[in-house]
Every structure is written in structure tokens, then in C-alpha cells.
């Protein structure tokens, strides 16, 4: 699926851009979500203080993360939960498979967890004979379509209802040509209800884990996490180690920000606090590092670990809106994904920090005030220094640096350029020139500013 591609963001975006009406629709839909976020945020006069407070809490978390993790573990154990630690994706997947295999379970229901996308858990379990069904409606749709989610909050935002209708007709037996969202949702409800009632294991993500109490919180609108978890014998919750917050009262800051930033709702329908297992049932937490402790050590990029996964930076990003989530070829798309992914694999994701205009809109909407666009800019410098930038770009930049460092060369280059534009426009107005693809080339001026200036000086004498 997502990791089998070797194409760059620019190539994948070019493919997405072939269908112009769809790009416009995608762009407008996400902008509409961004506009809803603005309305919700502007209703709270204390909004900026909330963001600042959330950011400061997360600063404190990152400065004391190891002791908060130990405190969380100790309290969770006291509550009767089982805690596992996974250094990387492979260990995470093995832990989960073992929990299932030990109990003779080969079918599991899963609610939204971007971490399991990052770890490619579904593929791993499938290879080991375990059937996984995603229960969030959007995730179920992309799962049936054999695609990864294209957005962390709105997994099938790239799909039209007619396409979803076709998928449901093929897999869930809805009427051919049916595309009414109400009827399709009802079809999924009936199908997934049967799944919830028959699965002995449920996996969920974690939105917040509270060090002080050893409980964790999951937010959904559909109620799928709760349906799965409360009906299963074993509930496995996978969390990135940065999901820790110090105290329960800090939820009073984060839950006010999360959904307003994500979709413009004042809160999700369900904010579920899991502290102890039900009688005779089990809750297991898997705490995953997978590169996070390394990112913590990168001074310029550690703030990316403050992310609460609201998706606001994607909804506002002009590049994301016009290139689609799949063009980022990583589990978490958009601006935040572009600063998280290079930490995991700098070579594979070298293109992502360049998939931005650096306009700064992402940083402006981020509820925990991550300096996303600064980090994108800083990643570019790291990537070039480490030698991971694309060859063509490296050569072009070197040629430019060479030209700009010599006034004579610069003047000659300008002259040649103007001559070409005037006498041989076909040499630049063609598909070989990437700049031409979406633009009209300008008319070349008769003379450069330098030439005009020295001529004017001559005349004044």
C-alpha cells in the first residue's frame, strides 16, 4: 500500500492534478472545514491563551517525558492495566500478534489509530493470518478500497460518494448506484454492528494518556472505539510515547482545542476515559517509541512531538488541499507529516519538506503552536546538507550559487536569458521546463535593471 511507492510528492501530486474538477472539489471541501475551525475558534475570546497554555503543557511534557512515562506506567499497573513497550514498529506489531495468538484470536476490530498505520499493523497481521476490520466509517471505506487513509481525521476525504457507493455495492451488498450518505452510513452501521458483536479483541488508539491517574482518553464521533472496546474480551490501546499529559485537569485544555481545531465542533460526541478494565476483561497498553526519542533529541524538530493530531494544518495547507493526502506517501500527510516523516527515514521522505510554500498558515492554526513552517524550512537545510536532496535540484542550486557569486557571469547569464526569451521562446516554452507546466512565461525586458541604471548615470553626467 502506502510504502510500496517510490514516487515523489511532486510526481504523485502531478497525477492527482490531472483531474482538475476533483482538485477544486477537494480544495473547497477542506477549506470549508478550515472555515468551520475559524468560526469555532473565534467564539472563544481566550483561544490564544488556550493555545499558549497547551503549548506550555507540552513543553513541560517533553522536558520530563521519561518520568511522566514511568508515572503513567506505575498508575496504569495499579489500575489493573497491562503495559507493554515497543522500541519500533516491528516490536509493536509482534506484541499485538502475540497477545492475539496466545488467546487463539484471529479476528480483530480496530478503531482509528494513525500509529497502527505508521507501523503497518494491518498488513503484518494479515500476513500472520489475523483478519482486521477498521470500524471508523472513513477508515472502513479506504480499507475496502485497499488504500491508506489520505487524512488523519477525515480518512476518505479524497473519495466521492458515488465511488463509495460502488465500493459498498461490491463489498457490503448495497444497491447498485446508491450514493446517498445516509443510506451508505446505515449499510456500514449494520455491517459493523455484526463485527462489534463477534470480535473478541478490539484495538484502539489513544488521544491522551494521563500520568497522574494512569488512565487514557479516546475521542470519537461515531462511538466505534467504545463499541469495540466494551464488547471485547481484550482491549489493546496503542499509543506513541508523546501522548502523555501530566494531569487529568490538563484535559480541560486539550479537549477544548482538539475538535474545534479539527472540524469546528465544540467537542467530539464521545470523550471516553479508560481507567480500569471491566470485571473479567483485559486492557493492554502498548507504548511505542519508533523514532520519537530520536526526534526528541533534535532540538529544531522536537516540538513536532507536541502534535495532538487534529489535522488543522492539513485543512489549511494550500499544497495539501491541491495535491491530496496520498501524494505525501507516508501515514501522516500534510505539513505535520512532512516534519515527522524525515525523522523516520530522511532519504525516503527527503521530498516532503519541499512540498510546502512556507506560507506559515499551518503554524497559525496549530492548537499547540508547533512552528511547522520553520521546521519545514530547517528540514530542507538538513536534507541538502546530508546529501538527500534530488540531484536535479542540487545541480540547479549549485549552478545558481556559482552564477550569483560572479557579477560577470551573472550579467552574461541575464543577457543570454533575455536573448533566448526574445528570439527563441520555444526553448523555454515547452514541457521540458518544469516552471512552464502551470505558468505563462513572462516577456523578457529589453534591458536589465543594471544596464538601465548605468545608462541613466551616463546620461546624467
Amino acid at each position, binding site marked *: 500500500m502506502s510504502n510500496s511507492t517510490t514516487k515523489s510528492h511532486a510526481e504523485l501530486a502531478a497525477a492527482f492534478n490531472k483531474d482538475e474538477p476533483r482538485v477544486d472539489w477537494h480544495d473547497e471541501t477542506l477549506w470549508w472545514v478550515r472555515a468551520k475551525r475559524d468560526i469555532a475558534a473565534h467564539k472563544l475570546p481566550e483561544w490564544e491563551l488556550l493555545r499558549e497554555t497547551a503549548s506550555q503543557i507540552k513543553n513541560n511534557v517533553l522536558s520530563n517525558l521519561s518520568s511522566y512515562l514511568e508515572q503513567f506506567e506505575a498508575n496504569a499497573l495499579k489500575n489493573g492495566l497491562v503495559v507493554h513497550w515497543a522500541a519500533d514498529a516491528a*516490536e509493536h506489531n509482534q506484541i499485538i500478534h502475540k497477545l492475539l495468538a496466545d488467546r487463539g484470536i484471529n479476528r480483530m476490530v480496530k478503531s482509528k489509530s494513525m500509529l497502527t498505520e505508521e507501523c503497518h499493523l494491518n498488513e503484518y497481521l494479515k500476513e500472520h493470518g489475523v483478519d482486521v476490520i477498521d470500524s471508523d466509517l472513513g477508515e472502513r*471505506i479506504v480499507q475496502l478500497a485497499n488504500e491508506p487513509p489520505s487524512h488523519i481525521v477525515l480518512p476518505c476525504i479524497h473519495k466521492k460518494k458515488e465511488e463509495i457507493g460502488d465500493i459498498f455495492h461490491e463489498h457490503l451488498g448495497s444497491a447498485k448506484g446508491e450514493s446517498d450518505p445516509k443510506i451508505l452510513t446505515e449499510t456500514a*452501521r449494520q455491517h459493523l454492528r455484526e463485527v462489534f458483536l463477534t470480535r473478541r479483541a478490539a484495538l484502539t488508539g489513544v488521544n491522551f494518556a494521563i500520568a497522574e491517574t494512569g488512565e487514557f482518553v479516546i475521542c470519537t464521533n461515531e462511538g466505534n472505539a467504545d463499541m469495540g472496546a466494551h464488547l471485547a474480551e481484550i482491549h489493546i490501546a496503542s499509543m506513541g510515547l508523546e501522548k502523555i499529559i501530566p494531569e487529568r485537569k490538563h484535559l480541560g485544555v486539550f479537549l477544548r482545542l482538539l475538535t474545534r481545531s479539527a472540524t469546528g465542533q465544540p467537542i467530539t460526541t464521545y*470523550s471516553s476515559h479508560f481507567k*480500569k478494565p471491566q470485571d473479567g476483561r483485559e486492557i493492554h497498553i502498548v507504548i511505542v517509541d519508533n523514532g520519537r526519542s530520536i526526534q526528541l533529541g533534535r532540538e529544531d524538530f*522536537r516540538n513536532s512531538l507536541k502534535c495532538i493530531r487534529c489535522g488543522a494544518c492539513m485543512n489549511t495547507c494550500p499544497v495539501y488541499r491541491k495535491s491530496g493526502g496520498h501524494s505525501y506517501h507516508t501515514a501522516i500527510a500534510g505539513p505535520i507529516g512532512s516534519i515527522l516523516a524525515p525523522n523516520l527515514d530522511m532519504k525516503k521522505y527527503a521530498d516532503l519538506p519541499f512540498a510546502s510554500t512556507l506560507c506559515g498558515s499551518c503554524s497559525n492554526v496549530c492548537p499547540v503552536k508547533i512552528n511547522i513552517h520553520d521546521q519545514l524550512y530547517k528540514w530542507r537545510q538538513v536534507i541538502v546538507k546530508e546529501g538527500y536532496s534530488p540531484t536535479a535540484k542540487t545541480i540547479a542550486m549549485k549552478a545558481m550559487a556559482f552564477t550569483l557569486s560572479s557579477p560577470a557571469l551573472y550579467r552574461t547569464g541575464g543577457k543570454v536569458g533575455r536573448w533566448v526569451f526574445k528570439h527563441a521562446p520555444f526553448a523555454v516554452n515547452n514541457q521540458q521546463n518544469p516552471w512552464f507546466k502551470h505558468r505563462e512565461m513572462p516577456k523578457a525586458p529589453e534591458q536589465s535593471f543594471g544596464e538601465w541604471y548605468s545608462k541613466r548615470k551616463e546620461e546624467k553626467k
Partner: protein
Amino acid sequence: MSRDKILAAVKKNEFTQTQLPDLEILTTLTDNPGDLTQQYITIASAGGSFVYEVADMEAIKTILHKEFKPDVKIISGIKEFDEYTYAGAVANELAHSFADVELTILQAGFGVAENGALWLTETQMNVRVLPFISQHLAVIISRGFLVPTMAQAYAKIGNTDYGYGAFISGPSKTADIEQSLVIGAHGPRSLSVFILP
């Protein structure tokens, strides 16, 4: 062992020192003296809940009789509603046996005016799955048990011990298909909130 390896790696990279911010300012700023009931009704209704201001338990019964046929399975967490199955009496039954429940009636601890959310713990739910598996949900709350925002909500929860607790702010919903809002995803198709004086 991965645990110690991870904790050591994290510890090595905690090179900053910062204090936790003061939350008091936010709590004071949002301590709204206005009419919380009206705010609650406006927000909860916008979120898809049906909110009724009622005089007493009898008025709730009248509304429920009108909305639900007598032959459907109804479970109540409130003892006064003796015509329905008392949730406390079936709390030890298998969670799956509630799959055919049409309506569940529960009491909430308190409600939040800024977002329409109701706080219920396992004690009030009796069975964790009940408020989710039921086709419809009704929640009863007293007027005096509304707080302005989540800041006051967590002050109220304090360090209460519970096995499980949830804020429920409306019927289960989704907008995953082309951002069209559909009520009734996996949980209840409706949430009725009854506010007692």
C-alpha cells in the same frame, strides 16, 4: 528490554526545563455567570440532541411514552422508572445481551454548557456498553449541575476514582462521506436530554 532502552533514550534527550503553566487564569476567564441552561440548550441542540426542560420525573415519563412504543426493550438506570428494566439488576449480564435495547435512560453527573457534553461514569451507566449499544439514549440532569466549560468540568471531576467515564455530547454521528453529516453512526441514533429544575 525495550522498556529500559526507551526510557533511557528519552531521558537522554530531555535537555530543557520548563514549568507547568497556571490553569487558574483560564478557569477564571471562563467562569461564566450567565444563564448556563440556555447556553446548554442552544449548543446541545446544534449538536443534534433533543433537549427538554421538564418539571418533574412524571413529565419525562409522558414524553417517553409518546416517543417509544411499550413493547420495545427499555433499560433504565433510574429506579423511579419501575415500568422499565432496572440497569442495576442486569449489570452482570453479558454485554452482548444488550444488542437489542431500543432505549437506555441514564442519569448524568453534570453537563457542560460550552459543548453540550454530559459526564457519566460507569456507576451511572451500570454497564459500559449501554450508552453506546442502545438505539436511543436519554439522559437526565438537574439544572444546578451545569458548568460553563471543560475547565470547570475537570475541577468538578477532581480526583474522583472510576473505572470508566465518558463525556457524551450528542447522538453518534459521522461526516466521513463527503462531509455530509449523518446522525446514527455506530452508537445511538438520538440523544434526548431532560433538564430537571
